[in-house]
C-alpha cells in the first residue's frame, strides 16, 4: 500500500491564506436511516462520534462525521484503517438496509487555513462565509466555481474541503488564484 498517492501529492500554496493537500484520508459513504439506532451505533463504532445534524460536521480524533443529505453521511478516518472501520459499520448495521462504501480514493481533501481563509472560499462558493454566520462545526455542500465541493470549519478557524479527485488540479489552482496576495477583500481577515 506504500505506493498510494493523492492527486495533488502533498501540494501546498502560501497566499493570503494557505491551501494544502490533506493527504490520504479514509472516507466512507454511509447511506441509511440517519435516525435509526443502527446508524447511530455504526457512526459511533467507526468514528466515536454521534450522528451529525443537518449541515453539521462533528470532528473527533482523526475522525469526522459529516452530514451529506437526509440519508447520507460521510465518515472520515485514517486511510489505513478504512477497511476495519467499514467492517465495523457493516457489523453494526447487519441485517438492515444501508449502503456503506469506501470512497477514500475518490476525493481530493484540502485544508484552507489562515486569516484569509473565509475570503478565499467566498470568492468561489455562493455561501455566506461571514464569521457570525458560518461558525465552527458547520458543513456545507455547495458549488466551488464550476465543480461540486463540500467544506466545514473547525474550532481553529481552518476550513476542510473535499471535492472529486479528477478535478484536483482545477480545485487547487482555483483556490490558489483566490488566495493570491493582493486579492484580500478586507472583510473577514
Amino acid at each position, binding site marked *: *500500500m506504500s*505506493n*498510494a*498517492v*493523492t*492527486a495533488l501529492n502533498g501540494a501546498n500554496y502560501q497566499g493570503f491564506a494557505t491551501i494544502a493537500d490533506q493527504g*490520504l484520508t479514509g472516507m466512507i*459513504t454511509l*447511506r*441509511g436511516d440517519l435516525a435509526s439506532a443502527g446508524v447511530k451505533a455504526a457512526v459511533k463504532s467507526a468514528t466515536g462520534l454521534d450522528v451529525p445534524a443537518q449541515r453539521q460536521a462533528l470532528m473527533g480524533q482523526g475522525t469526522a462525521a459529516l452530514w451529506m443529505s437526509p*440519508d447520507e453521511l460521510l465518515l472520515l478516518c485514517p486511510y489505513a484503517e478504512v477497511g476495519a472501520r467499514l467492517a465495523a459499520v457493516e457489523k453494526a448495521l447487519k441485517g438492515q*438496509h*444501508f*449502503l456503506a*462504501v*469506501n*470512497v*477514500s*480514493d*475518490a*476525493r481530493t481533501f484540502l485544508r484552507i487555513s489562515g486569516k484569509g481563509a473565509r*475570503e478565499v472560499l*467566498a*470568492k*468561489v*462558493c*455562493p*455561501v*455566506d*462565509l*461571514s464569521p457570525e*454566520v458560518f461558525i465552527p462545526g458547520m458543513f456545507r455542500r455547495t458549488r466551488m*466555481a*464550476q*465543480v461540486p465541493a463540500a467544506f466545514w470549519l473547525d474550532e481553529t478557524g481552518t476550513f476542510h474541503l473535499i471535492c*472529486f*479527485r*479528477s*478535478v*484536483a*488540479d*482545477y*480545485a487547487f*489552482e*482555483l483556490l490558489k*488564484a*483566490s488566495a*493570491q*496576495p*493582493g*486579492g484580500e*477583500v478586507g*472583510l473577514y481577515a
Partner: protein
Amino acid sequence: MSTRLAKGGRLLDKGRALHFTFNGKRLKGHAGDTLASALLANDQMLVGRSFKYHRPRGIVASGAEEPNALVHLGEGPRMEPNQRVTTTELFDGLTCTSQNHWPNLDFDIGAVNTHLARFLPAGFYYKMFIHPRPFWKHIYEPFIRQSAGLGRASNPGDPDRYEHFYFFCDVAVIGGGVAGLQAALAAAEAGAKVLLMEQTAHWGGRAPVDGGEIDGQPAEDWITATLAKLRDMPNVTLRLRSMGAGVYDHGYLLGYERVSDHTPGTNAPRHRLWRIRAGQIITATGAIERPLSFAGNDIPGVMLASAIRDYAVNYGVSIGDRTVVVTNNDDAYRTAITLKKFGLEIPAILDARQQGGGALAAEARALGIRVENGKGIAKVKGGKRVTGVAICAQAGEGAVLEEIKCDAVAMSGGWSPVVHLWSHCGGKLLWDSAQAHFRPDPANPPRGAQGEAFVVVAGSANGYLDLAGTLSDADAAGKTAAKAMGHKPKSTKAPSATATDEAALEAVWLMPQGANIKLRMKSWLDYQNDVKVSDVQLAAREGYESVEHAKRYTTLGMATDQGKLSNINGLAILSDALGQPIPQTGTTTFRPPYTPISLSAIAGSARDEIFQPIRKTPIHGWHEANGAHFEPVGQWRRPYCFPKGEETHRDAVTREINQTRSRLSLLDASTLGKIIVKGPDAGKFLDMLYTNVMSSLKPGKCRYGLMCNENGFLMDDGVVARIDEDTFLCHTTTGGAESIHGHMEDWLQCEWWDWKVYTANVTEQYAQIAVVGPKARETLAKLTTDDLSNDALPFMGWADLTLADMPVRAYRISFSGELSYEIAVPASHGRALWDALLDAGAEHGVTPYGTEGLHVMRAEKGFIMIGDETDGTVIPQDLNMGWAISKKKDDYLGKRAQERSHMADPNRWKLVGLETLDGSVLPDGAYATAPGHNANGQRMTQGRVTSTYYSPTLGRGIAMGLVHNGPDRMGDVLDFPKVDGGIIKAKIVDPIFFDKDGEKQNV
C-alpha cells in the same frame, strides 16, 4: 479656454503631480483628478468625434452619465475602448487616445457627414441599404462597419486578473451620497447587516458641492462624522469604487468593484464582481441633470450646469472665463454663484421661465449677475468650442435678440432621478409633472416571491431634490428596509437641513419652444448616437409611436450610455410629436448593468488553466509525459492515441490496434462510470432500468445491458457486475456517469421512494485499466499468485485479486473482442498499477492505446457506441438488439414507448455494416441516397453512416449505418454522395466484421 484655478479642488492633492498622455501629448494633472478634470485643466476641450456625423465633441458631464468623452484607455493588451474620462481616476503614466476619427481628432474626414445631415436622417440605414438585397453583405455592411462605431475592440491577452465575491446582507444600499449614508446609518442602527456601495472614490455625493447645512454643520463635516459612525459599526461594510450594476429577482444584486483601475501594476485584481444576496436593497442612486435642447448644444464648452460646478469645486478647473448659464430651474443658479465667487465672469443667466427664479436668483442678482427671464438660447456660436450664444425669447421661434460672447455654456433642464436599479426588476415609475421627471412609484416596487417589496428608494433618486427632503426620505428608507428584515428601527429623528426657497421648475423640452427646422436639426438629444430633435419628430411622423420602436429607429438612448442624458428629453419630444402626455409614452426598459461592466469581471477567474475544470484520471500525468494526443470526452481529457516521434495519428492508431490484436495493450478506462446499487430491491430496480434482466445475474458474474429513457430511446449502456446478493456495480459510459446516477436517484426519490435501494457513484474511487490482447493473461499472471485460468475467471466473470501487491478487482469483459481484463484499483494506486503493468508487459512490447483504437476495434466487432449509433432518436430495436430486450419482464423504462406505432414501424432504419466497394473510408454522417426528390427538392435518402473507420485489422474502410430495411438487404449496394461531388458505393453487410463467433475473447 479651460484651465486650472488657483483656488478650489477639494478632491485634489496639489502636492502630487501625475503625468499622463492624451493622443501622445504629455499632460500633467494632480492626484485626485479624474481624467476628465485633468484634460480640462490642460485645455483639452475637444475629446472625441460623434458617432454618425463625426462632430467635435467635448466633455458634457462629470459622472457616469457622460455620453461624449470616451477614450481608448491604456495600450497593448490592456487597451480598453469606450472608457468614460469622467469616471476614470487619473494615475501616473495613464495613456489614452480619442476615438472615432480619421486621420486625427482635430481634422476628421468623417465630419463631412455633418454637412450631409439632411441626407442622413433617422432610419437612414434602414431606408438606404435595404435594396438591392445582395449589396448589403458585400458593399453596404463593410462600408458601415468601417465608418460606424465608437472604440476599437480591445486586444487579446489581458494581463490583469479578475474575480467574484459572494456576499450576503440584510440591507444593501446603492449610492454613498448623503441619502445613502443616512439610509445605511438608519438601517444599521436598527441592527441590520448593511452593505453600502459608492461607485466613485468619494463619499458624500453632490452635497459638498451643492452646499447646505445638515444638523447645523456644513454638509462635508456631517459626511465625515456619519462615515466615522458607520466605520465603527461591526454590522456595516463600506465599499468605494463599487457600483450597483444590476438588481435581479430574490434580492440578487450585482456589485462591480473597480479594485485597482486607479492603481495599475499592483498585485490586486482589477475588477471584482460582487454577487450579493440582499434581503432589502435601497437605491440611493441620486439624480442626473438633463441638458436643454437648443441649436448647437453639442459644441464643446456646452456642459451640464452641475458638471461645471463640480469641476470648479472638486477639481479647481474652470471651463472658461465667461460662462453663460441657461436654465429652467433654480439649481443652475448655484453654478453661476459658485463661478462668480471663484472670480469668473457670468455674462448672463438665461432663465427660460417668465417668472424667473427664487432666492438663488435674488442672490445671483445681488452678486451683480445679469439675469434674463423668459429667455433662451437660439443658437450656440462656435465650431470646436463655444465662442458665444445668440439669445432669443423662449416663447418665440428663435429670432436673435442679442449675441453674447462666452467660452462656456452651463445648461440645466432639470433633474431626473436615477431610477435604473429600481426599474431593473420591475419597479414602476410615476410621472411627476411638477418636477418634470419620472420617479419611482412607491405603490409598485420590485417584489419578491411572497409579493413583498424588496427595493426601497431613497433621496433624490426618489424625487427629493432638496437636502432636507432627501435626508428624511433616506432615514425613512433605512428604517423601512431594516424593519422588513425583522429589525426594530430606533425612533430617532432624521437629520435636519436648511431649506432653500426655490421657485418651481418649468418644463422646457425645446429651446425656443417654437424652434424652426433649421434649429431643430442642430438641437441634439442624444450626443453619443447623434440623435436630434428633428430625428425623433421624423420617427413619430413615420409611425414609430412606441417609445421602444422610436429608440431602435433613431438609436436614441442606445450604446454605452443608454441615454442617461437623452431619454427623458427624447420621449418628451416624441410625446409632443404624438400629441400625447409624457406618461402615456412611457420610458424604454431599464436593463442591467447601470453602466457597462467589463466582460472580464463577469468571467472572473475563469480563464487560462482554470477556464473550466479538466477532469484527469490518476494516470493522466503518464499520458501527458508520453506524448498522448488528447480529445475531450465530457470534461475529461482522454488520450486519442499515443503517437511516437513523427508518426501521424492514423499510423499511431493502426500500430496500437495491431499491437492489441496480436499481443498486448493497455487502455486507461478510469473514466467509465461506476455506480453501486445496493438493497433488497436492487435487482428489481435494475430490471426496471435496463431492458434486459439483471436480477437473475449470479454474484461473480457480469452482464451487458441497455438503458432507455421513458420515451424508449437508448440512453446508455454498460456492463453490470453482481457483487453480492444485495449489491450490483453498474458501469456506465464516460459521459453518462453523473447523468445516469441522477436518473437512478430521480426514479428512487420521486417514483419508487418506497423501494429499498441505495446508490453511490464510485466512478472516481477507482482507476480502471483494461489489459487487452492475447498476452493479457500471462502478463497478469506475472504479477499475482491468484488463479487466472478460464475456469477460475471465465469470460463475463469478475474476481478480487492481489496484483503487484495491490488489491484489485478484475472484470473479464471485452470491448475489443480480444482476451481482456478490466482491472479496477483504488485511484491512489492507479499510477502504480499502470507502471507495474507496463513493466510486466514489456516483453510483449506492451503499448497504451487511445480512444480511437478503442472505437475502431469495437466497430470491427460490431459493438455499438452510445452517441455514434445513438443520437437520442434510436431505440435498441433499431440496432437489432432484441436479444438484449427481455420478453419476460412486465415492464422496464421505455417498454411502453417502444410499443407505440412509430417505434414499432417496420420502416425504421436499422443497423447494418457497410463495406465500400473500393476499400475507402466512408465520410462520417454520409447519407445513402434513394431515387427521387422530396417536397423541398432534396434527394431522397435511405440510410446514413453512424460510425466509419479505417480498419487496420481488415486493411479497408468499414462502417456501420442505419439503413431502411437494412438487415433484409444484405449484399445490396448503396450510393453515398461525398461533399466534393463524387459517390462512394458501399455494400450492406453484417455489422460484425471480425471474429463473429467471439473466439478471441473467450479463451
